[in-house]
């Protein structure tokens, strides 16, 4: 019952967030220099008359309140509008881009959680060992490595070298998993590594610190003195409590993740939402921008909801209210 009320409250506040974000994106667009879109469509040499015509065609001459009214009306009916540049439906663009971005994010997330938490737990249980020192240097290297540099280095060092020597599994671009799962993974493996590295570094560091603190608690000493095996002490007693700050970091990091997605998609020309949003922003393609921004905000809201639920599962003291 309490959970149902929690869910409803969160959904309502999520809708408010989405509305605020869409409004912000809409207003930001009108801060742009005028006529950018019309000029893009009609060419540099266009006469003022042509520009007027294009603006009229796209409804850009209407007062901002009227335009916003149209926008809201369509939005309520589940229609995100049409791209200014080629008239393609934004819904179609999203349907086409979403699988690409989802493939990237899901794979990278698995990778960074496994590597990040694994390295973190190993470093904490062997604090100040050789492994821990090497891991610390590796973690700092990972944090210092800009995503786009790592992507480019993987392209030149792995993709290019492998393909030169006739090993063509690792590929650039995107191929859907419907044709072959193996081919899909071959296209995604370098982007996964690229996107996951920074987060894996951050998470291994967080989980190491958190687990070290937890291992110093009295109840861990109690567990040890009961004669439990070290493995049981670490995994049953310590890890669960140590994971709570890591999980809450997950909610905060969603924004950073989206930035990483933009860069990774651009480097590997995956053609997902990240790459297309850069293009839409540069071109001033308002309907596409707003569609993407709403999608991103939805992602942030849902991710935070999931994080809160996981948090309450990990730590029974936390109540969902």
């Amino acid at each position, binding site marked *: 019952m309490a959970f149902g009320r929690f869910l409803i409250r969160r959904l309502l506040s999520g809708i408010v967030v989405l509305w605020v974000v869409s409004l912000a994106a809409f207003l930001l667009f009108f801060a*742009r220099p005028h006529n950018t879109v019309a000029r893009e469509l009609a060419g540099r040499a266009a006469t003022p008359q042509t520009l007027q015509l294009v603006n009229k065609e796209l409804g850009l001459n209407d007062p901002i309140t009227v335009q916003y009214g149209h926008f809201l009306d369509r939005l309520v009916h589940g229609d995100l509008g049409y791209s200014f540049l080629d008239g393609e439906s934004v819904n179609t663009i999203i349907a086409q881009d979403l699988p690409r971005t989802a493939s990237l994010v899901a794979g990278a997330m698995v990778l960074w959680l496994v590597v990040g938490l694994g390295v973190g737990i190993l470093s904490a249980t062997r604090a100040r060992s050789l492994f821990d020192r090497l891991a610390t240097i590796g973690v700092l290297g990972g*944090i210092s490595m800009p995503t786009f540099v790592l992507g480019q280095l993987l*392209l030149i060092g792995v993709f290019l070298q492998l393909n030169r020597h006739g090993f063509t599994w690792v590929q650039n671009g995107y191929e859907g998993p419907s044709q072959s799962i193996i081919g899909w993974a071959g296209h995604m493996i370098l982007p996964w590594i690229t996107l996951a590295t920074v987060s894996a570094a951050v998470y291994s560091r967080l989980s190491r610190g958190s687990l070290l603190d937890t291992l110093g608690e009295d109840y861990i000493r109690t567990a040890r003195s009961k004669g439990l095996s070290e493995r049981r002490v670490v995994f049953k007693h310590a890890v669960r409590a140590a994971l709570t700050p890591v999980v809450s970091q997950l909610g905060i990091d969603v*924004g950073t993740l989206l*930035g990483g997605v933009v860069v990774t998609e651009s480097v590997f020309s995956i053609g997902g939402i990240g790459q297309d949003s850069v293009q839409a922003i540069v071109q001033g393609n308002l309907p596409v921008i707003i569609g993407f921004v709403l999608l991103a905000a939805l992602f942030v809201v849902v991710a935070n909801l999931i994080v809160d639920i996981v948090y309450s599962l990990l730590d029974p003291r936390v109540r969902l209210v």
Partner: protein
Amino acid sequence: MSVTELEFQAQSAAGPVQAIEGRSQWRLTWRRLLHDRMAIASGIVIVIVVGLALAAPLFARLTGHGPNQLFPNTGLSVNGIPVGPGHNFWLGTDEQGRDLFVRILYGARISLFVGVVTTAIATVAGVGIGLVAGYFGGWIDTVLARFIDAVLAFPYVVLALALAVVLGPSLPVVVGVIAFFSWAGISRIVRGQTLSIKEREYVESARSIGASPWRIMVIDILPNLLAPVLVLATLSIPTAIVFEATLSYLGLGIQPPTASWGNILAGAQNYYNVAWWYLIFPALALLITTLAFNLLGDGIRDAMDPRTERLFAADTARRRLRRSKPAKAGGAGTADVAGA
């Protein structure tokens, strides 16, 4: 004769007491930092990078190659491909036949400038807002804390791109955008610290003798925050450098022909299969600089943490234990350290 005097006499009778030098927190920190070879090496690397950046015009004169000067005859091969590292062009050239070494040096000026200036702005703003939010509490804190959370949770690369397009990409816009997304992390830590420090007795006593809130914040609370803020600021510099490079890489930061590590790397993207140096050298410059700042920040953090000394001590003790009793290592040793 009081008891203390007796003790004092007893001590002096036992011989000259070894003088115990009073050491301030900062001197203790500095001593610990000097023992951290990694941090010292990083500091030296940073000094070298800064020196090279400052000396960029000198190297431009030495090589005779301006940062934006094209050398279509000597800098490009017959097929129009960039030439590799050699006697004439130390680190090779780019696709327009410009000297990569000189451009990387000029790029370092941009990167370091952006890193330091944005960090300075973000630190001042972050500390100010965090102090006010934490000290005053109430609705001021609620509003500011929500704002901090919102900035932290926002997909900042996307918004930075949008802002860069709206305002037109330029150096001041890049600095402003990066600073705007950098202060919130500092603010959050400062706010948390202020919340706990303002409950201390000495703050209460300052208030009771009539000190104004501003005086308490600046004189009583701020000095206690310097340590974490120094660490955060050091770690914020590499983040800002990477942020600038990313914006420039996506074409929305420093605009060519002005050299920046980000836009050099963006240019390199199309030539990675014919000119490895074009990608590798600017990437190395970027990586070495950010890594050095991160290692230094990490070293300062460790040096400021009094627990570090104990960890080192526990470590040595454990090793000694293991050496004397090689059969009974493992679980017991770890338990000792964790309990220490």
